[in-house]
């Protein structure tokens, strides 16, 4: 591997979080953008072609080395690492709404979900998945929520636009129209 690819590997290995491209650039101030991109390509390809237990993934606006999913079970069985807990259905629904309609206030979320979401918002906020991004108009100037970079990281998305567009969703509840 080239020295730059090795340096990137060392840095990505040391970090528990994805590293944004700009921060990777700070590792070697003399490397051009093109050189950096080439080195990232080289590293990712090395992991793929050479057959490694890890791979290079672009997500949440940065880069991260992750283990390949085929080894997860064995690692968990040997109790060497544990998968993070799943989000509850309530949390997922609230996140889905915020992801698509941000900035969004609590009242709108409750209107759509039909339940009160105070504690769900609190726990999503504590986990860093959402943040207050502004205040709405109207009475009490309600807090408006949006998703964070950690949201992208959690779902291994590069950008928000990797989610299907609203008009691509099939609102296909018309299963079989039934004669009444």
């Amino acid at each position, binding site marked *: 591997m080239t020295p730059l690819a090795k340096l990137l590997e060392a840095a990505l*290995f*040391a*970090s*528990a*979080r994805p590293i944004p491209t700009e921060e990777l650039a700070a590792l070697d101030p003399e490397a051009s953008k093109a050189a950096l991109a080439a080195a990232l390509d080289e590293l990712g390809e090395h992991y793929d072609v050479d057959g490694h237990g890890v791979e290079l*993934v672009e*997500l949440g606006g940065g880069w*991260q*080395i*992750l*283990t*390949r*999913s085929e080894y*997860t079970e064995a*690692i968990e069985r040997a109790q060497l*690492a544990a*998968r*993070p807990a*799943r*989000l*509850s*259905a*309530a949390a*997922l*629904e609230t*996140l*889905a*709404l915020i*992801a*698509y309609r941000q900035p969004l206030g609590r009242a709108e979320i409750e209107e*759509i*979900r*039909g*339940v*009160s979401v105070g504690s769900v918002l609190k726990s999503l906020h504590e986990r860093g998945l959402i943040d207050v991004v502004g205040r709405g108009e109207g009475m009490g100037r309600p807090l408006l929520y949006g998703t964070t970079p950690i949201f992208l*990281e*959690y*779902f*291994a*998305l590069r950008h928000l636009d990797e*989610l*299907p567009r*609203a008009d691509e*969703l*099939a*609102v296909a*509840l*018309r*299963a*079989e*129209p*039934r004669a*009444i």
Partner: protein
Amino acid sequence: MTETAAYVDYATDAAPAAFVIELAEFSGPLDLLLTLIREEQVDIYDIPIARIAAQFVLRIRTLQLNEAADYLEMAARLLRIKAQMLLPRTDGEEAWDDPRAELVRRLLEYQQMREVVDVLERAGEDRRNRFARAYIPQAPAPPEAPLALSLSELLAAVDRILRIARDPAIHDVIPRAIDVPGAITIIRELLAIRARARWTDLVPYGAEPWQVLSTLLGLLEMAKLGECRVAQPRPFANVEIIRDAAGEAA
């Protein structure tokens, strides 16, 4: 109409296995409603409201959701729509405002959100199946910064301890009088040289309790006599002893 009969049917049926459901399975009244609509295989644009309302009420009774206001609110809404449906339509069919329209809109909106949830769930599951680099020690919250330690630091610490270490004490309990006059003499000697002193100048590291008590009492006595002033700038800060003007004159 048969809808009333349906209600009776459902109400009298012994709850089938599928009815034994956890509240946790549903993320809200709309979720439950959608599940019912799917199970009943009815058209969302033409919901047989009486039947669905009956099912809904039955389920939340089975679930004993007395405390869940959200579900009860939806039940009330369904019953109101059902009542509106039963009202005789005085005008022509075209002018009729379907009382279910608002509910349908909400269900569709909710359904769309559920689709996104599916997408997120798949993405989240995929990510969950891959591990990131873990730090030491493993913290549930953001990873703690690792420690910077060197062997030489550790050895220096050993050396430091040895310098201050006292012999392991053998606790022979000897009654020992507190020596206040002795302590006052020491304090006076110190204040004769220095205008200001600190508590730690008077009480050596590792002092015996009787020494500490003697110094404390001596200090208080001297302060009372106006030989010195005692001040502590902050809680737990080192106590400062200031030679008083009276003491200086003496």
